[in-house]
């Protein structure tokens, strides 16, 4: 057997794949073969490494050198310079705000420095298709410990003491949920993993499923033992085919190794897991709707109580936790409740994974201790807002959450603090918005989402959100009236009070929170018929500055409706009657002569 001297890790997370990871890997392997290195150097596709904006990322071990933005051309240098000659390819190294980061100290990159990885501990380090690599990182050790040394009650006690709360958004204490399900009397019980990650802008669970599927299987089996269950279901979105493929592979491997199935590890405990695939309904993230969907029905929510812990899947007690919650379980069992509880704040223990996106330099997946401030998260880890723009707001919790304005950036990230501000922790989507974002438009965007996704069962949610959307559309068209703002608030409160499930109860949040913090922007739309961020099409005009325009005709050529006229080398003009406000002209103008104005 050839001795493997180098291992090359290549990130196969969603963002890196869309940045061309597959072809990079192909060229990398060809190049290795060309130098007869294919037996000596191992290439491993890992889960998401987190720094999605720098992808595709390639890391060379044992040196621990991380290369960013690798393409089919420069990947050859990694083989020819680094692998063959032992010389680090300096120009491809990770770049920080102070320049290139020295090869061995990539952890010093501010993107990684403030992170604490528990749920995502194996992402970007192991090959998710290989169970041995998971085992080598203490995988299935927690399960072994639980099955051979602990009673179910002891397991629940540890989870309770750790202070872990549900990472799906609501933050219910996980240990309590386990205890309730344990106490429900029944000969049949189920464990369900909610992997129906539906919030737009959220890809935490996807990354965990794709990058470390075994951790979910191990945690579900531990949960099964703790509550007295026999079977588990993972409910995954159909939009995540790669996650489904890797889960299927992981389940087969776990069965083969005796970690799943009959008589696990010879202890007499039996537990098996099946995958159920969603079909594109956001409301199925709600636990009772999810149960209906697993049963093959329309995914509409039921009245609670009874809670799933009492009457869930097919009427049997059912424990439902989300992917990230499960991913925290094995480390808690191995390292203990006190260790976990020592991280975070008084009421929010441990870490939270966020998908950082929007107008921020380092987009990607980050895991941070609870209690970190939004400022640290966005500026120290995220690198701040690009193009010297000003940060305007941070949106957390997706369509159920709210917008937090820039003046609250020093708020610690924990369940209670975010809720106080009218936002929520949510499942972990965090979208940064800069001065070019119109808050009314953002609120409208989220309302469109809920209108589409409302299952229709409760009238306030079905009709109320539609009414709110109509009002917002009216406002962004410049036809808003002053009483519209009060109407929005009133409607919002009624929808929150009278909807059955979490979807309706939180749907007005994006509107109410923007109304609270950015009322002046709403008022500008209503009273002055003006969009301060210059986004709402009906309220803006494109104009050409005749001083700056040199008459290059680039804009006139790109305009899809022929709204721009003017002679060559003379200042051009835009006809506002024809212009559709598509913005193509601004993008091609090299002289900064075109701008948007709002009266």
């Amino acid at each position, binding site marked *: 057997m050839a001795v493997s001297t180098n291992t090359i890790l290549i990130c196969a997370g*969603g*963002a890196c*794949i*869309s*940045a061309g990871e597959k072809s990079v890997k192909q060229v990398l392997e060809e190049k290795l073969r060309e130098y007869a290195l294919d037996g000596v150097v191992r290439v491993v596709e890992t889960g998401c490494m987190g720094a*999605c*904006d720098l*992808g595709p990322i390639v890391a060379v071990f044992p040196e621990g050198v991380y290369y960013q933005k690798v393409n089919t051309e420069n990947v050859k240098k990694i083989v020819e310079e680094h692998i063959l000659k032992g010389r680090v390819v300096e120009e491809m190294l990770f770049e920080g705000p102070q320049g290139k980061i020295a090869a061995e100290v990539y952890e010093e990159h501010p993107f990684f420095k403030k992170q604490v990885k528990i749920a995502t501990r194996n992402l970007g380090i192991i090959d998710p298709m290989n169970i041995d690599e998971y085992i080598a990182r203490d995988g299935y050790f927690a399960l072994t410990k639980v099955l051979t040394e602990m009673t179910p009650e002891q397991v629940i006690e540890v989870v309770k003491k750790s202070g872990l709360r549900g990472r799906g958004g609501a933050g219910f204490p996980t240990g309590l949920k386990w205890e309730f399900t344990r106490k429900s009397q029944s000969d049949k019980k189920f464990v369900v993993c909610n992997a129906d*990650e*539906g*919030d*737009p*802008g*959220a*890809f935490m669970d*996807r990354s965990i499923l794709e990058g470390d599927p075994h951790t979910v299987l191990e945690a579900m089996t531990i949960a099964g033992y703790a509550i007295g269950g026999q079977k588990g279901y993972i409910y995954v979105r*159909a*939009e*995540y*085919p790669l996650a489904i493929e890797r889960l299927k592979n992981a389940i087969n491997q776990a069965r083969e190794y005796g970690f799943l199935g009959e008589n696990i590890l010879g202890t007499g405990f039996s537990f098996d897991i099946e995958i*159920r*695939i*969603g*079909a*594109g*309904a*956001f409301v199925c993230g709600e636990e009772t709707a999810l149960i209906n*969907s*697993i*049963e*093959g*029905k*329309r*995914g*509409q929510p039921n009245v609670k109580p009874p809670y799933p812990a009492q009457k869930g899947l097919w009427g049997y007690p059912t424990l439902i936790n989300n992917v990230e919650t499960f991913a925290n379980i094995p480390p808690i069992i191995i390292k203990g409740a006190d260790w976990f509880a020592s991280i975070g704040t008084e009421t929010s223990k441990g870490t939270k994974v966020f*998908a950082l*996106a*929007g*107008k921020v330099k380092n*987009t*990607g997946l980050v895991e941070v201790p609870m209690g970190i401030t939004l400022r640290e998260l966005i500026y120290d880890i995220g690198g701040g807002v690009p193009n010297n723009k000003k940060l305007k707001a941070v*949106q957390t919790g*997706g369509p159920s959450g709210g917008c937090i304005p820039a003046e609250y950036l020093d708020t610690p990230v924990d369940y209670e603090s975010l809720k106080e501000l009218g936002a929520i922790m949510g499942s972990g*989507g965090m*979208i940064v*918005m800069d001065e070019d*974002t119109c808050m009314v438009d*953002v609120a409208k*965007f*989220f309302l469109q*989402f809920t209108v*589409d996704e409302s*299952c229709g069962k409760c009238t306030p949610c079905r009709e109320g959100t539609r009414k709110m959307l109509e009002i917002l559309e009216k406002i962004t068209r410049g036809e808003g009236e002053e009483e519209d703002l009060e109407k929005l608030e009133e409607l919002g409160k009624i929808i929150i009070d009278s909807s059955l499930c979490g979807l309706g109860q939180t749907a007005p949040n994006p509107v109410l929170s923007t109304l609270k913090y950015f009322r002046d922007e709403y008022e500008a739309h209503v009273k002055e018929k003006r969009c301060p961020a210059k986004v709402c099409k009906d309220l803006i005009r494109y104009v050409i500055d005749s001083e700056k325009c040199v008459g290059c005709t680039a804009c006139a050529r*790109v305009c*899809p409706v022929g709204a721009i006229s003017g002679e060559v080398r003379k200042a051009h003009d835009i006809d506002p009657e024809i212009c559709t406000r*598509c*913005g*193509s002209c601004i*993008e091609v103008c090299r002289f900064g002569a075109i701008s948007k104005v709002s009266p």
Partner: protein
Amino acid sequence: MEKSVCKEHEKLYRELDEFIQEVEGDSSALIEVLHKAQQIFGHLPIEVQEHIAEKLNIPVSKVFGVVTFYSLFTMKPRGKYQIKICLGTACYVKGADKLMDRFKEELEIEEGEVTKDGLFSLHAVRCLGACSMAPVVMIGESDFYGRVTPDEVPKIIRNYKNRGGK
């Protein structure tokens, strides 16, 4: 001619029946069966729904209810290349709506419609989870395009047109 169409159809139904047998006619597997049926037939016309209802021993109304509830199921045919434009928050903030407009303009269809040649259909989809590459377009099940600008749209369409029906 007609006979061969019939035969082709029979083959498709046989494939579906085999899958139903695999799940042992379990009616709770309805969503899985519908996924499979849509993969086989391309969409879920009422005849296929009736067939499934019969095989799973449940009312057609229940099948219809499920088909119309979930956004991934369709009763209308879709294009050979389904163009899915992510309208998640990150993509929206980075101008995905402009991409959608450009695709509509270039293909001369509205969202949810199919081009006359049956090659393309246009769909707005929920977050595809590649927010760092926003705005994102996915064509078919595996072709990802990140950081797409409206100007790249004609080129993307051309690529698939050149492949034609292949």
